[in-house]
């Protein structure tokens, strides 16, 4: 009889960390200890703390192990599984007075609430029965057997659910538009393109609980009167694609996709369309073009997809995370959902925490949680005692928030009013070592690469923006450069065809507004305060401190350092120096200064 279940994270991060081999090793050691009839091992989705993966959860004890390697497994099996003594040095759970605390009381999980990530890290995503055990497909059954289309739409409207793909448009409204169209053929699409650098929320949902998205798409299709769907996902997400394929097959085998679902007369099926990983293909009209087999380029709106979408038919397109909330809204009711979060931003939001933060990973918090709670209480703050400088949200379309904004409750409108945006949920923390001009340059570099080239302001304008920023980082900027940045930004915003161009200047405008002094330092003093822009740096050896050992000269890859061993202080030739910083690392006497 089974008494312990071990679930090993098989998301992308932990898979790279070798979690596949862990499963085999667990099985081997469990067998070796003669416990194979008592303990089972399964794979699961993201547990959240990707930075200390691979993660392994043990039930019923509710203990999570971190950074588990093949070498730890024997100890976990004999000490914990056989003798009941959890291996504390590997545990994520806090321990107080010798007692292992519930994982939900640990600092990382205490302030989280998992709705979209519900079941991720608990069930085996490749086994439909585990999803069904956790009330999977009950919402679809309820909708098909007891609710009218309008009742479904009204429920979603009343929940206040807003699109999680970036724009925050009310999902129910979108469904209503599509429902009201008098066409016979309609479509539903799931946007799983997820192109923002640093974002992996949607991938994790699909890897951990693919059925939640499939079920929601069927519900949406019923509500608007569609019977076919597409999941548009980038081919760069092979694990998510494979789990989706397995899930779709299993749903078909169980009659949960196909004709006459639950004997209701409602037919629905869907297919996966692989994208090649272009950022612009996340934009809904470009995505639709891509599904149709054309080059992924945006179209002018109107017409909106709800009127004329894929194959010219009424289409709703929603984000993965938006869908992941639907089944629970149907089962637990719109009032329950609306009671979580804030009045204007209901429910929760998943964030991918990255950058200069201790707990890198995936978190889901109620809307209205403050940035401080996410970054400090859950994320653990900046590592190595560095000072927090800003957090970038909304990716290349978003902006930065600083120390003064830390107590802002997270919500669509709150972030917009501060000049940033919710975006899809990437949250990149920056510390004192990040140069804000360089950060803006990084995002523009990304945009220049990803601009599809259809409209001139975006194709040429963003390139010019990039060049202006680059000139500042090289110390060639003047006051006019700033004026030009502001001017050009406005023109690009006003005249670009799609959201990509219209929001591309945001990182520039946001950093210009919040970190004007840093721009000024680059322009007037020709200095980069964070010490990032190489052209503005110089490495100088203090002759007083130099012990004439020559270690720095040995390390210099370009032979820029000269001096006579034991006799004269060494000197760096500024013309030759490539500012790699190797000499600073080599010097034992802290004689080399970066200025």
């Amino acid at each position: 009889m089974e008494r312990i279940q071990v679930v090993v994270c098989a998301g992308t991060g932990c898979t790279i960390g070798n979690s596949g081999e862990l499963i085999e090793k667990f099985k081997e050691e469990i067998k070796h200890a003669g416990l194979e009839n008592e303990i089972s091992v399964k794979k699961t989705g993201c547990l959240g703390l990707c930075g200390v993966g691979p993660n392994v959860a043990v039930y019923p004890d509710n203990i999570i192990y971190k950074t588990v390697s093949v070498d730890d497994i024997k100890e976990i099996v004999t000490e914990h599984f056989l003798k009941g003594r959890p291996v504390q040095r590997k545990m994520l759970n806090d321990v107080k007075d010798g007692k292992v605390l519930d994982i939900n009381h640990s600092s990382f999980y205490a302030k989280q609430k998992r709705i979209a990530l519900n079941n991720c890290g608990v069930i085996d995503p490749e086994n439909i029965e585990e999803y069904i055990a956790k009330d999977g497909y009950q919402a679809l059954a309820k909708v098909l057997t007891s609710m009218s289309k309008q009742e479904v739409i009204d429920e979603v409207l009343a929940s206040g659910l807003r699109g999680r793909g970036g724009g925050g448009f009310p999902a129910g409204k979108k469904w209503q538009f599509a429902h009201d169209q008098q066409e016979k053929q309609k479509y539903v699409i799931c946007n799983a393109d997820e192109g923002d650098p640093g974002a992996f929320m949607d991938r994790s949902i699909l890897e951990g609980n693919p059925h939640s998205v499939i079920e929601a798409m069927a519900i949406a299709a019923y509500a608007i009167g569609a019977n076919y769907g597409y999941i548009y996902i980038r081919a760069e997400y092979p694990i998510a694609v494979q789990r989706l394929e397995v899930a779709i097959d299993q749903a078909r085998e169980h009659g949960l996709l196909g004709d006459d679902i639950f004997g209701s007369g409602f037919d629905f099926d869907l297919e996966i369309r692989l994208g090649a990983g272009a950022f612009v293909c996340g934009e809904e009209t470009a995505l639709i073009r891509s599904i149709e087999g054309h080059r992924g380029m945006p179209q002018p709106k109107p017409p909106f997809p709800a009127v004329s979408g894929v194959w010219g038919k009424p289409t709703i397109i929603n984000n993965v995370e938006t869908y992941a909330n639907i089944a629970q809204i149907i089962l637990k009711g719109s009032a329950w959902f609306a009671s979580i979060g804030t009045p204007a931003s209901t429910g929760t939001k998943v964030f991918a925490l990255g950058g200069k933060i201790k707990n890198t990973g995936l978190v889901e918090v109620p809307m209205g949680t403050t940035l401080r709670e996410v970054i400090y209480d859950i994320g653990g703050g900046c590592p190595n005692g560095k000072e927090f400088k800003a957090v970038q949200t909304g990716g290349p379309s978003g902006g930065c928030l600083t120390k003064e904004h830390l107590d802002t409750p997270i919500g669509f409108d709150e972030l917009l009013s501060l000049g940033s945006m919710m975006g899809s949920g990437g949250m990149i923390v920056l510390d004192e070592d990040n140069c804000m001009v360089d950060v803006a340059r990084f995002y523009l570099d990304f945009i220049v690469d990803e601009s599809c080239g259809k409209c001139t302001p975006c194709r040429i304008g963003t390139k010019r923006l990039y060049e202006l920023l680059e000139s500042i980082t090289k110390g060639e900027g003047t006051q006019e450069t700033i004026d030009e940045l502001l001017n050009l930004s406005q023109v690009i915003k006003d005249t670009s065809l799609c959201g990509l161009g219209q929001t591309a200047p945001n990182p520039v405008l946001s950093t210009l507004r919040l970190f004007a002094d840093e721009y000024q330092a680059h322009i007037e003093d020709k200095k980069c305060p964070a010490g990032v822009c190489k052209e503005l740096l110089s490495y100088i050896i203090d002759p007083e401190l130099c012990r004439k050992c020559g270690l720095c000269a040995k390390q210099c890859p370009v032979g820029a350092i000269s001096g006579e061993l034991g006799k004269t202080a060494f000197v760096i030739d500024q013309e030759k120096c490539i500012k790699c910083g190797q000499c600073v690392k080599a010097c034992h006497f802290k004689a080399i200064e970066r200025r």
Partner: protein
Amino acid sequence: MKTVEELNQLRTKARNKMEMRLDDGHDYFVVVAMGTAGIAAGARNVLLKLVEKVHELKINALVTQDGQIEVTGQEPLVKIVDSTGNQVIYKKVDVAMAEEIIAKHLQNNQVIEEYLLQEGQ
């Protein structure tokens, strides 16, 4: 499947296989002290019997293990905590006693006084 009943049947069947991963509350937590002393005194057989019976009789209890509950010479020890947090510890439990504890304590909420580990023992 074509009906909601079929879905519900499959749910019931599937829940049986993953009870310990559901978020439902439990009437009792049953903790068996394993560790070297416990195992030497036969705690493993007690643990397995408890797991088997709880499952077989569909008792809403969660059976887990611990390294050591108390320092005694009275292993195997079994601690039972009810949903209000009240707890008792049984001492020198063998397989037959385990069945009796299930029948009396878990099924009929009747503490078996004579098996209890006394304070200070």
